[in-house]
């Protein structure tokens, strides 16, 4: 069973996303804080990371920075969630080596689920 880490500080959004992922049969770790996310990632690599940018204590960008410095996380696909629709944010996200998707809130849950399925299928093949 694929392991997905969901880092989203909006508790309701986090919960509903986790609910959908669990229903689809994934093992989910919900996290609402950037610092906690970094600590978790340092110990164990999930199969996929869904990451919000605006986070307390450490922003999503800082989490990305951390991931790119860790060898054991070099293959971790990261899907970025953001409430900002600016071009700069998208370019910044795309420049990140582990970048595997970008969703601007409010996103369609169905799109996210399909994208997750595709990413995990691909990583299962490799």
């Amino acid at each position, binding site marked *: 069973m694929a392991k997905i880490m969901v880092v989203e*500080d*909006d*508790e*309701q*959004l986090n919960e*509903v*996303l986790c*609910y*959908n992922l669990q*229903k689809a049969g994934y093992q989910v770790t919900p996290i*609402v*804080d950037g610092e906690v996310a970094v600590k978790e990632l340092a110990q164990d690599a999930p199969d996929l990371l869904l990451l919000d940018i*605006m986070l*307390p*204590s450490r922003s999503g960008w800082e989490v990305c920075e951390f991931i790119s410095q860790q060898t054991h996380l070099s293959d971790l696909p990261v899907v970025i969630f953001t*409430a*900002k*629709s*600016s071009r700069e944010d998208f370019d910044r996200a795309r420049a990140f080596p582990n970048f595997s998707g970008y969703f*601007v*809130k*409010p*996103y*369609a*849950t*169905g799109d996210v689920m399909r994208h997750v399925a595709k990413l995990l299928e691909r990583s299962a093949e490799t």
Partner: protein
Amino acid sequence: MPQFMKSIRFRLLSVTLLAVMGPLAVFSRLLNDQLWGFYVSRLDLELEAMGYVISEDSVPILLGEEPREELAAVVERWDRLMGVRIIVADADGTIQAGTIGFASLKVGTEIDDTFTPGLRAALRGSRNSTTWRGPDQDYEETMYVNVPILSEDGEVLGAVRVSYSLGQVKSGITNIRHNLWLGFGVYVVLLTLIIVLLATSLARPVESLRKDAQIISGGVLDHRIEPYGPSEIKELGDTLNQMTERLAGLEGQRRRYVSDVSHELRSPLAAIRSMTETLIEHGDDDPELKHRYLPRIVSQTDRLARLATQLLDLAQIEGDDTTQQFEKVCLRGVVDEVLQTTERAAGEAGVTVTTELESSSLAVPGSRDQIVQMLLNLVENAIRYTPEGSLVAVAGSREKDRVVLSVRDNGPGIEEKSLPFLFERFYRVDQARTPNRGGTGLGLSIVQRIVQAHGGSITVESELGEGTLFRIELPGCVEKE
């Protein structure tokens, strides 16, 4: 007025030239009159002096002591020496000698009043002088001085007329005036050059400033002016730079604000959408989901609506100059209204709100709606962020000419590192957002803007585990004893 006439160059030049040319014209006219008067009176004296000398020379001839022919010699000598015309007449009025211009005047003829004006008067013993233009315009104006020839015992023996053309005086003065005008001309040309240079040195930095300002008004807010030229223009450039910096700052703030607002709108929308989609997808298999998500969707919708209202409130407070519509706001009424409005929320949260006003006459000059909103936001915040069983105390007192309003709670308190950001838009202390509490992150910003608009100040003190105190100082109304 044509555009070029409004330029610095044209104005400086025209004003200066007018200022110089006007007095020069008057001066030239005055000089002309003065010179004319001076030369004519000098000429009068000189001609008179000559007349008397000739008259003295003529006395022995007219008395018959010397031959008559001598008279012609005397007249010729003076004519040659001084270039004057002379007529000598005897006591009977017969011309005895002369250098005569008019054909009708010959030696041996009778003098007449037309061609020898004033000469007959001189024969009666009175010295006189006159100017005459002659019988027609062909003759130049001429000065005639008539002097009687008197014997030692005072008998009139005859008269001498000495005349000189004033045309020569005129041409002399005209010469002086021409030289003067030539000097003026050179002066004016030099002055024009200097003014054009001066105007250019003034206009060029202004023109350069204008170009800079045009670039800035085109939206290039990071454009910086390097002003030069006179100090006033430099200062203007520096001021423009400061203005542009401020504008750039405001523009940056505006962009951040719009971006923040967009972010704040998208988050509840995302939650509503995700929950609704999940309900559509799994609602039938999982009946529990409906009970969990539907109330959340309602509260998120409320939050969006509140956000919209507060954004509008904030824009209004920041946009209006409401000081014009200030009235006397009685705090008793404000506190009662806030208490009524929050009664239900306080009851549901299990929070007790108490009030203590030092005097029921406490009042501030302000906008009543804004003062109510200010206190309401603080009390609502206190109710929202304190646990069940907490106390919220609203107090009002007077300190000299200021009124102090405070809202104190005995809730969990706020971390010290958060305090400086408390009044920033969209800043929330509970960063792991808990939307069920319904905060929009705008409440305290609105409070601060209202306090500022009323000329007051707001401070916050907080200790973890002890509680939080918001203290507002406002200028008070003068209380009647």
